[in-house]
């Protein structure tokens, strides 16, 4: 019943920040309000269960739904050997969420990737630039409204 414990603890600790929790086998999921992200992430990292690892950070574009984007974080606790998935929804008009760079070092590149491919703005990121695409690339390729074979304009080679 340890599985439940962390979800219950989160619900008690952040009654306003948690939208829902669910536990399917192997996948503990907690859906949060985006404003509470940094607080909850810090609590998880330093709390009893020590989710010291940010395994993964990505985004899903649910085009047509509102809020449209969903940030997905995968945390891992080495001491408890458990994973936890955090999800937060972002509306299209307000594509901003707190950056996790103060907590985890790999968040820097991961957030640059999401910024590049989805156009999500991470507040507090020290160096938010495109990671995979080049400067001058138009649009954000992993969005659902970006066509698979869209051509990009030619850009001037610098220097």
């Amino acid at each position, binding site marked *: 019943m340890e599985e439940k414990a962390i979800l219950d603890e989160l619900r008690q600790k952040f009654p306003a920040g948690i939208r829902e929790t669910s536990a399917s086998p192997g996948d503990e999921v907690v859906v949060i309000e985006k404003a509470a992200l940094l607080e909850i992430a810090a609590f998880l990292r330093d709390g009893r269960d020590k989710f010291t690892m940010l*395994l993964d950070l990505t985004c899903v574009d649910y085009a047509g739904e509102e809020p449209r984007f969903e940030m997905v974080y995968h945390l891992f606790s080495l001491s408890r050997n458990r994973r936890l998935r955090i999800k937060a929804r972002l509306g299209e008009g307000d594509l901003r969420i707190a950056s996790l760079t103060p907590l985890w070092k790999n968040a820097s590149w991961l957030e640059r990737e999401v910024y590049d491919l989805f156009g999500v703005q991470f507040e507090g990121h020290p160096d938010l630039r495109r990671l995979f695409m080049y400067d001058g690339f138009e649009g954000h390729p992993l969005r659902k409204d970006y066509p698979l074979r869209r051509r990009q304009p030619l850009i001037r080679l610098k220097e």
Partner: protein
Amino acid sequence: MPNRIQQQARPDTMLLNMGPSHPAMHGTIRIMLELDGERIVNSEVEVGYLHRGFEKTCEHRTYFNLLPYTDRLNYVSPLINNLGYAMTVEKMLGVSVPERAQYIRVLMSELSRISDHLTCLAAMAMECGAFTVFLYKMKAREFLWDVIEQTTGARMTTSYIRIGGVRADLHPGFDTALKKAVEETRGVLKDIHGLLDKNKIFLNRTRDVAVMSREDAVSFGWTGPCLRSTGVSYDVRKAQPYLVYDDLKWEVPLGERGDNFDRYMVRMMEMEQSLRIIEQAAVRLPKSSREFIADGLPPAEAIKESRRRRVRRDIALSPNLEGSEESRYRDILASDRGSVVPPKEETYTSIEGLIDHFKFFMRGHGLRPPKGEAYFAVEGGNGELGFYIVSDGTDRPYRLHLRAPCFHIVSALEQLIQGRYVADVIPTFGSMNMIGGELDR
């Protein structure tokens, strides 16, 4: 463009460009160095030269036919990528895999792991000047790849591990070939230990160079041999055992200092453990329920005969399909008929089989995992290789995200080489095992 470093550079330093096409950059990656003499004051790593839009492409392919794309992620150990993807979809579908197929999967992923480590260390040693080591390791890798080639039909682009099992059963001479490969690899590993472990040149370039602390390694999300070289014991195969890893006896080798030499050493020891796993798995591999079919009815005749009555004899399939005869299906593929390719014998000779075939491959049909999402990770050559798949109930993934282990490892490169010499970049980068296909996707 490496803007940051250009803006921040001091006026008295020199900017030097390493890559994207540099002999020691195993993929295409660009490192911009700000140098004070030979010291690296600052650096900036630029990735993305091999970005092929893997995730975007997958959204437009069905679950079955995006499998070949996974080969091309970590192209040194494609079988583990196949496995990671297949197991994630199996988790969504709730399919269970026969025991023999599980052992075959373990064998194949350990062979890939060894070849992955061999390639990484071979390149690293060569860049430090040990060309003999490179040739020895490539020789060993060839023996392993021979086994993989004989089993899967391809050296690198295998697509062998399928959703629900494996594509084909092992061939008759597998045991002998495997035995030879294991023996040869053991011999090579021994030689390498002799050549490198106390080699002064190698030690000077790796001992205490680019030391990673435990805390930083965890904070950077390192996994795999690189994390274990810092002394953190986390291996997905032990922590969350999948397949039959739980039943086999093996250990997780750890390093102490987290420097280049430890990364080398952990990989070397891991290969020995992988050999142990392979030997045990080869012995415990459940027997196949059928011998190979030597001569069966030619397909054309079978089709002809099926027009009048049901064909009851074995049918000789094309050599491409060797090992995936219908009679072997229960050894290698899940019993759930809807989630595996229908046997060719039935497709050829019965109308129901033909319908099954079309239902499996037709647009909008085929594999349709229930609505929802799943994350599943396996231990890849570089660490935790995770797939995050969101399904909307159709035959194509709504979103597929790859958690590439070396993405997190390379993101620490800037920190590791800061304050070191230019020459230190080479062994450090080599010991990280950057794989472009996986990093850039």
